[in-house]
């Protein structure tokens, strides 16, 4: 395992600035998740570290060694893609052995055997080793393609939305699994996603990307509870943070232009009248869609609430997040 440091890295595609003087530090043994919408520069960042793209400026170093001039193979990184690409005519064992048999690594056969068995156990697929790749379910195939990265013991794992093509149940299972694998092998992992649940549940650190820059870097709890901007606040939290004009609530600081209210910032029972637009039962939680003086907001309520459309409840903000006119957080 290793640490990765990006310093002032810039990448343009024609006139588009994909990565804008990015600084990023991935510590030893960390599970760093880069979170951002489509086009924020997540995948480009991974590809730059992997050596699949060349930066226009800046430095990329792995374990203190500048790798700008190194080929992907020399960098000793392993990449897992969204779409699992296995060799369909090979068994799971041969698929897993393949990277080790490469002419560069030239691993002895008994070593390969041991390594593949070890990785299969970590992934809970030892009983599938002699199946053909095509006989596996989607989740198993994705586990094999993760396994193909694991057998190599690279300096760093780069994963590009590896769970996004799987269905919801499998995604939930593999989230837990990836976290377990990370803690078992103690690897350094850089993981890209636009799924906030993945970021919150797996990451030791989250980097929030916006237009090719890291706008905040910290633990998931830090990012959720202390977002530096409206943009960051909107990336984490379900239901999404409500934003209302500060003028609605007297007594706030002058600089406050927008009030950000997560469900835990909305006290129910006293305060101002809000009308219930809709009650949405999700099983484990019930969402209230409210209208407060012409502004829509969503909060959570008791699962078996008797409230229905058209009812009125009283609400007031409680320790809300405040933002200025530019969207920056006011402390």
């Amino acid at each position, binding site marked *: 395992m290793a640490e990765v440091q990006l310093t002032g890295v810039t990448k343009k595609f024609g006139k588009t600035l994909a990565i804008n003087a990015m600084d990023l530090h991935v510590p030893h043994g960390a599970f760093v998740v880069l979170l951002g*919408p*489509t086009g924020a520069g997540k995948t480009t960042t991974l590809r730059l570290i992997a050596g699949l793209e060349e930066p226009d400026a800046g430095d990329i170093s792995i374990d203190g060694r500048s790798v700008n001039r190194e080929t992907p193979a020399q960098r000793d990184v392993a990449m897992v893609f969204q779409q699992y690409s296995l060799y369909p005519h090979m068994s799971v064992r041969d698929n897993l052995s393949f990277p080790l048999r490469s002419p560069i690594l030239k691993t002895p056969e008994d070593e390969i055997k041991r390594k593949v068995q070890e990785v299969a156990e970590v992934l809970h697929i030892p009983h599938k080793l002699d199946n053909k790749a095509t006989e596996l379910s989607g989740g198993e195939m994705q586990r094999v393609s993760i396994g193909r990265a694991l057998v190599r013991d690279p300096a760093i794992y780069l994963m590009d939305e590896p769970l*996004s093509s799987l*269905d*919801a*149940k499998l995604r*939930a299972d593999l989230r837990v699994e990836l*976290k377990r694998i990370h803690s078992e092998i103690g690897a350094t992992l850089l993981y890209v996603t*636009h*799924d*906030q*649940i993945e970021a*919150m*549940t797996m990451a030791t650190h989250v980097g929030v990307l916006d237009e090719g820059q890291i706008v905040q870097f910290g633990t*998931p*709890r830090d990012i*959720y509870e202390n977002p530096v901007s409206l943009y960051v606040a909107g990336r*984490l*939290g*379900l239901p999404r943070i409500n934003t209302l004009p500060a003028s609605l609530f007297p007594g706030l600081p002058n600089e406050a232009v927008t009030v950000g209210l*997560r*469900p*835990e910032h909305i006290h129910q029972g006293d305060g101002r009248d809000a009308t219930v637009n809709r009650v*949405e*039962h*999700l*099983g*484990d939680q019930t969402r209230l869609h409210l209208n407060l003086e012409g502004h829509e907001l969503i909060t*959570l309520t008791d*699962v*078996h609430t008797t409230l229905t459309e058209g009812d009125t409840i009283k609400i007031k903000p409680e320790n809300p997040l405040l933002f200025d006119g530019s969207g920056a957080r006011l402390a």
Partner: protein
Amino acid sequence: MAEIVIKNLRKDFGSFNAVKSSTFTIEDGEFFMLLGPSGCGKTTTLRMIAGLELPTSGEIHIDGEEVSQKPASQRDIAMVFQMFALYPHLNVRKNISYPLVSQGWPRQRVKQKVEEIAQILDITDILDRPVGGLSGGDRQRVALGRAIVRDPKAFMMDEPLGALDAEFRERMAEELRGLHDRMNATTVYVTHDQLEAMQMGDKIVVMNHGVIEQFGVPQDIYDWPATLFVAEFIGSPPMNFLRFGGDVTPKSKSIKLGEATVKVPHQHAAASGDLVLGVRPEHVSISDKAKYRGQVLASEYLGTTQIITIETQHGEIKVRAPSAQAVRDGEQVGLEFDARTLSLFDASTGQALISEANKGVLGHG
């Protein structure tokens, strides 16, 4: 719009039985979800209602008329697929007009109708744009427009949001449901995503291996699952199962879980042997004085709440707790179960045992 009644519907593909014997009613104006894992028969059911597959046996009544052997074209149903197929060489207006033009509607009426639909879908400003340059969301709206412009008796939707990314899916789900509320059209919607089903559906049919496991309103299915399959399929994380050996009599108000006595809803049936106590993650709380104990394995932070995984002598369980509650990995904690919410299952049949609490939903006790 129409009511759809399904009776003893069955479909075989060669020797493979895709749908066993389904019976349910979709009421007029309902947003109806067919939910289940891949291969459970949900899409086959939808295709039989639409007329894209003919059933092996059984009946389908749309608006009072038996249509099971009629071709799709005579059923007046619109289909929306996961991959929205638009005519790339036509603009938005022409794509939406197409079904009406091909039915020979007069020009003026087509124009009027298309503009009305565009307003419902909020795409008036892109009517004259080619579909090529549109965003995924707008393309989806145009595809919907083409389905609703005909005023069909019902809409069939086969995972229309499946190909979209998570954030956008959430928004489109809201939009689809809003659209349904404005038009009150009977809609049958196939999905494997339980959250989508919970969020959008008036009623849900949960299918597995061609069999209907449960049919009802979302919150009832969530609270009182009829089978272990439903309990595990619905909810994220799913219902926890604590497996134990014991007896339940029609008088039982508690069970023995190891040394601890756990209060359960007043039971109506008898069962013995391998039983399962089912409890949702949000119905377990961590409490020092609770007798039933376990060891904290891990916690996952989710913002407002956290999920704590705890090893007990009856298996691993997940607890949803406020994220302010501090727990340490490895710590021993007491677990309190919310008695009114608990379900018991017979492990051998997978069926829920009928109690005072779930008899209203499961109804056969």
